[in-house]
């Protein structure tokens, strides 16, 4: 267990090192702190002196070490735009993004496992075919388009009247295919403060309604992938010798499906899926843009727009850290669930 942890930790540090070098290279080449500090009017000689004083003429490695030393203490300098420490800016936007990701993750897990398992157990049932058809369409719709369609349907509303509205059934059918709209699709509403900069949408019903459309959009990108992954793995497991042997033992089908097969299905799903949940953070950039959700993604795009280099660099480091943490957690969970992984580190 200890050896496994150390190995994982070493790997995580290596990844963070690579990310930090890239982040620093960006800062070094694109950011000009002097201009930000003193403006255009200061003469060149004064700038050069300032440059020397700040150590900007030092070799790359020296400057990187200085950057890394600060980064370890979560000090990435000041945002050009907000004029406050970048970590404060990020921390203010982080809860919104994390809540969005959490809500989507919940949707993905709650829906993909039953649907995936069902369509593997009954591959020929019409419902399975329907799910598979919807999931390939789902994969083909970009996340921002899902979001736009959801806005059109449930925030703006659609009134269609292809059926004669003067007859009773026509009006009823028209009603059925039309939507009212009215769902909130802009920002977070009034989230309830918890502590510090953390405000939550989970604490009130009204807060939750703000979360619905963004969370569904974000979930829509991963849900079809998860359903297809679970179905494919489960189908493969169902063909295995140990499932056949369990049948030969006279075990009930329910136990075979939900214990023998599902437990083996979840192993690859945890590795692939866990990493995918991490990448949801990347997709928040798109979802947050459409819904003007005040999270890190929207902030990042804004930072790009305004060339706020320190904020961009901080965002990269923080998102990198989130990815590394999720990957390490996923590996740990996988190791705990899969008995064939030697967590002990001693030879079997």
């Amino acid at each position: 267990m200890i050896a496994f942890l150390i190995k994982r930790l070493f790997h995580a540090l290596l990844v963070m090192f690579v990310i930090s070098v890239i982040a620093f290279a960006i800062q070094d080449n694109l950011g000009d702190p002097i201009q930000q500090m003193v403006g255009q009017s200061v003469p060149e000689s004064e700038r050069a002196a300032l440059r020397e004083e700040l150590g900007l003429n030092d070799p790359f490695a020296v400057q990187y070490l200085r950057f890394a030393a600060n980064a370890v203490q979560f000090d990435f300098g000041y945002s050009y735009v907000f004029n406050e420490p970048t970590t404060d800016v990020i921390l203010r936007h982080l809860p919104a993004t994390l809540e969005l990701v959490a809500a989507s993750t919940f949707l993905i897990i709650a829906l993909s496992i039953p649907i995936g398992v069902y369509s593997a157990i009954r591959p020929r049932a019409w419902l399975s075919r329907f799910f598979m058809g919807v999931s390939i369409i789902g994969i083909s719709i970009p996340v921002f388009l899902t979001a736009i369609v959801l806005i059109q349907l449930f925030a703006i509303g659609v009134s269609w009247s292809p059926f004669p509205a003067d007859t009773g059934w026509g009006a009823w059918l028209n009603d059925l295919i039309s939507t009212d709209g009215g769902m909130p699709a802009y920002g977070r509403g009034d989230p309830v403060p918890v502590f510090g900069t953390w405000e939550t949408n989970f604490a009130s019903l009204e807060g939750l309604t703000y979360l619905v459309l963004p969370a569904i959009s974000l979930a829509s990108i991963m849900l079809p992938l998860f359903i297809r992954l679970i179905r494919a793995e489960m189908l493969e497991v169902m063909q295995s010798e140990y499932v056949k042997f369990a049948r030969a033992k006279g075990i009930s089908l329910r136990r075979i499906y939900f214990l023998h097969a599902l437990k083996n299905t979840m192993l690859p799903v945890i590795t692939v899926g866990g990493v995918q949940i991490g990448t949801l953070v990347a997709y928040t950039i798109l979802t947050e843009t459409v819904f003007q959700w005040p999270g890190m993604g929207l902030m990042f795009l804004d930072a790009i727009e305004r060339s706020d280099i320190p904020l961009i660099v901080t965002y990269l480091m923080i998102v990198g850290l989130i990815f590394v943490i999720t990957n390490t957690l996923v590996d740990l969970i996988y190791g705990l669930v899969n008995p064939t992984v030697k967590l002990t580190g001693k030879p079997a």
Partner: protein
Amino acid sequence: MTTSTSSAASSSTASRWERFRDSYLLYSFLRDPIAQVSLAVFILMVACAVLAPWLAPMNPYDLAQIDILASELPPFWVDGSDPAYLMGTDAQGRDLLSTILYGLRVSLIIGFGAVALQATLGVCFGLLAGYLGGRVDAFLMRMADIQLSFSTLMVAIVVGALFKAIFGGATFSTYAVPLLVLIIGLAEWPQYARTVRASVLAEKSKEYVDAARVMGLPSRRIMFRHILPNTLSPIFVISTVQVANAIISEAALSFLGLGMPETQPSLGSLIKSGFDYIQSGSWWITLIPGLVLVVLVLVINLLGDWLRDVLNPRLYKG
């Protein structure tokens, strides 16, 4: 040795058509209506894109043809439409059908270009990693892992943002097409590298590779003449999916303002420019290009699914 292989190759080209006619690929294609419809739609869309300058009622790049008074006209089946603009017009008064045809063209060029680039990078790295093993393998795969764990979209956005910052907005817009090919190509090569590496490792353990090595063939020749042909079908299968992914990535980048400029729109930037008008009721500016994008990506994905089922019999599940 060389003569015998080349004569074998020429005899196989002679019967290539026959082999295709008898192949399982064609057999299952003729039996799969979804694959047939998908291919037909895909070919139709590619044809429309290629022929856009002749098919489109007007040239959206030509400012002289744009009538700003005719902006935000709805498509023909909605009240208040103008028969001159079949699919309506966008906020700048451009004919939507024309911009979609040109946009489709841009999306397809970037999609195929990016896949060509990532396939070249990925196949080379994958072959190297799989064949040489050891440190090269460890280094390349660690790179691929890191990039994949960051998600290709994230990498594309960051690289796109960097390019925009380095080159400046105006230059970026001028060279948007090659730059997007480069961005998406750089972001997605690990998919190929992993697949190729996995099949190289599987092939490498087979006897014919040992035989080729014992005969003293140079490793470059073994890789390209002996191993690569045997990894073609997985490459083929992921290529279709990757084209779909590249088109979606381009659309996403354009939607975020890191892709094609509005003056030279792709489907993604059309959706972006229409999004601002959706609240005012002009849904068609964003939803019609959106529908075209979805259909394009969907038919490619369906073809990819079909190919995977056919070329990988192990995956075939009654």
